[in-house]
């Protein structure tokens, strides 16, 4: 049949693919890639250049995306679980990063902000920061799980107070870590041309993947998020599971804080990880996960996070004024979110059906 090619591809296969949640962020990623390819193919060029220390490192827009998107992608892991289990979001992660980073610096530098040597090993500082972040996560989680406070309201407390607490931990000083090896986490390890944050992010993805594969975390979290009453009657403890997701997010916060602080070897309490909570929530939403909780796709959230970073880098590449950046971002986000909304999806499905029907009719004729 000569007109066979104009017909849509196998309808059922198409339907199967489009029903997959991950298609939404992937399509967005593809769209951005195609846009850049048309606009300026050199956007994708990657080159090996020496950095200020004389080490050979990879550089280019793509490297910048996978580097700078790391913190966001790591946070998206925890945010996805929190969203799925509690049907709400933690808006305090930015402030929590400030606290966690501050704790890390406090342990590393001790009371003297200008200490020449490390007062404690980096691993100790990191572990202490993990514990503190998890404790704050547990605080948020307890408010949500046991006191049944709406997640956004519960985490508003830490959102408001967090950066002041962070500042208070170091007596409002800005300690600087002189030890060079501390800067590896946010930059490059000598001899490895790949940015360390990306390596850390990959390690986090693998750990999350293994946890989801080798534990019942996914099933329990989704079950609690979808139907708490049923979950309880099936022997689950919904409060504990919700609490657990907030604690896991706390751990993600500590890792993100390590990268953030390491990038500049110090901290600025009021701007570190500013607005990152909104991007993390957006990553979850872009991944096609319902913000009201329930079923989730971790991979889709991670891709969602990189879509956001891709978008930011694209806008920078277009030399959009930094002050105007959020406005441009907002426009694109509106488009993406509207495109992936249930209302539009339904409409598209109807249109697709008609199209197929017409196609079939044409074929018959």
């Amino acid at each position, binding site marked *: 049949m000569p007109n066979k090619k104009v017909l849509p591809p196998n309808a059922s296969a198409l*339907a199967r693919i489009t*029903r997959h949640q991950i298609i939404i962020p992937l399509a967005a990623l593809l769209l951005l890639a195609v846009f850049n390819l048309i606009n300026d193919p050199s956007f994708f060029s990657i080159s090996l250049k020496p950095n200020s220390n004389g080490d050979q490192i990879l550089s280019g827009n793509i490297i910048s995306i996978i580097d700078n998107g790391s913190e966001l992608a790591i946070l998206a892991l925890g945010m996805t679980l929190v969203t799925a289990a509690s049907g709400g979001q933690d808006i305090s992660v930015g402030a929590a990063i400030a606290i966690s980073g501050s704790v890390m610096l406090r342990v590393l530098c001790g009371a003297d902000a200008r200490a020449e040597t490390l007062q404690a090993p980096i691993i100790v500082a990191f572990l202490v920061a993990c514990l503190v972040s998890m404790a704050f996560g547990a605080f948020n989680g307890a408010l949500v799980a046991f006191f049944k406070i709406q997640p956004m309201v519960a985490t508003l407390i830490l959102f408001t107070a967090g950066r002041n607490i962070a500042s208070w931990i170091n007596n409002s000083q800005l300690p600087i870590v002189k030890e060079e090896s501390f800067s590896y986490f946010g930059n490059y390890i000598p001899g490895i041309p790949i940015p360390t944050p990306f390596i850390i992010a990959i390690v986090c993805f693998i750990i999350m993947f293994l946890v989801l*594969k*080798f*534990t*019942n*975390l996914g*099933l*329990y979290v*989704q*079950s609690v998020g*979808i*139907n708490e*009453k*049923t*979950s*309880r*009657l*099936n*022997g*689950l*403890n919904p409060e504990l599971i919700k609490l657990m997701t907030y604690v896991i997010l706390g751990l993600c916060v500590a890792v993100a804080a390590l990268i953030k602080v390491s990038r500049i070897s110090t901290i600025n309490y009021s701007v570190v990880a500013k607005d990152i909570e909104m991007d993390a929530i957006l990553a979850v939403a872009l991944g096609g996960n319902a913000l009201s909780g*329930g*079923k989730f796709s971790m991979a889709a959230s991670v891709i969602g996070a990189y879509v956001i970073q891709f978008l930011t880098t694209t806008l920078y590449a277009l030399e959009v004024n930094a002050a105007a950046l959020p406005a441009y971002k907002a426009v694109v986000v509106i488009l993406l979110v509207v495109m992936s909304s249930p209302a539009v999806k339904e409409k598209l499905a109807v249109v697709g059906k008609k199209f197929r029907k017409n196609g079939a009719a044409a074929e018959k004729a």
Partner: protein
Amino acid sequence: MRDKAILEMRGIYKSFPGVKALQNVDFTLCKGEIHALMGENGAGKSTLIKVLTGVHIKDEGNIFIRTESGEEQEVQIHSPQEAQENGISTVYQEISLCPNLSVAENIYIGRGDSAFISWRKMNKRADELLKSLGIDVKATQQLASCSIAVQQMVAIARAVDMDCRVLILDEPTSSLDDSEVKKLFGLMRQLKDRGVGIIFVTHFLDQVYEVCDKITVLRDGTLVGEYEIENLPRLQLVSKMLGKDLDDMADIKEEAPVFEDKGAAPVYEGEGLCSSEGIKPFDFYIRPGEVNGFTGLLGSGRSECVRTIFGADKVTGGKVKMDGKEVRITKPREAMDNGIAYLPEDRKRDGIVGDLSVKDNIILALQVKTGFFKPFSKAKATEFANEYIKLLDIKTASVNTPIKSLSGGNQQKVILARWLLTNPKYLILDEPTRGIDIGTKTDIQKLVLKLASEGMSVTFISSETDEMLRTCSRLLVMRDRRLVGELTGDQLTQSAVMNTIAGGDKNAE
């Protein structure tokens, strides 16, 4: 369109991914008739209703209505609002009113002609409306304080006041007791006399024959036929719904099953059990292989008893022994660890995890029992799911289909599969046959007897006494949240049960 028809649906098609829910279905409703829509679960009743009310949009077919001026008109219904504008109103099984508002507010909410409300006028109008319909409730009363039956009637009153010409009642009687059903039927007849066409969806055959004029039967998404009630005897109706003869029903013993007490120690023994839900402390035991049941009117505390046994409500007292050993059961997890399984009464609220797949729903309870660190592999989970899909004949497109897209009876089977997979010693079934079709009901009854013959203890609760008499060898009778009697052997007759429930029998305390 026929002369007296006020609604006609012609050649309706509707399909969902993997399911052809309706295929070339016709349906005609005349003025002033009560028309039963019958069929097994998955026959397409709900889908047809939803197409008519704009919840789903039909793929193909035409819907005609007769306007008030008497003209025929084809209508496109894309939303419940449009259905309402065309005079089609629905009262669902689950009341969809606002419980925290007053009766009058519920009748008039969202229909204000102006931005200003005269509360006095509204209440007066509501009172008149309720009085004219013979509904015994005050307009100012908060809806939540009314019984379910009254709430339902308020919903009907609302529909009537909106000049509905087609009223759809979707399983309205499933949570009503007999006297409430009588009242509802009175109201239905009254509306019929006013010329309203009523579509009545129910699983209760008695009720169909009591109140309906016509029956339309659907099966597997297709139309079986439309019948005048007097031309379709009960047995024929059932065989048309099932599409087969009723030999299957005959398999179930008509006489009460006898349980041979071999003197084995009870599997479960509770003493002075009580919970936060206000039931009087009660004693209870069940032996291996025994099937017993709690009976009583709705609200008598049947469900609360089994919920206490399973630890589903807050347990406030009592001693529990399993196999003679004292154990502590205050929450579901402890009950599960002791080999108890509980299929809850409210499938939608307490049973299914709607968005999860059939597979995940089946393995859920066992995965909780095995613990956090022991998930099944995908292959293993699929194997379990397929095993029970086959065993219980669950109709689903695949193991990965979300459970919410299954019909009610099949959802119930999935939950049953979930608990059977945990290999319980003691299975509690609270209204497992509620709102599901005869075929599945019979399947479940047979399954209960089979499990018991294999040594499992089962407690069975059903609103239908004959169903309980067919399956249970011992009945515990509840009245006003208190255990008032126990019936075994020869006492297991309809009249004895009724007497005990009513309190006129020697068996009652």
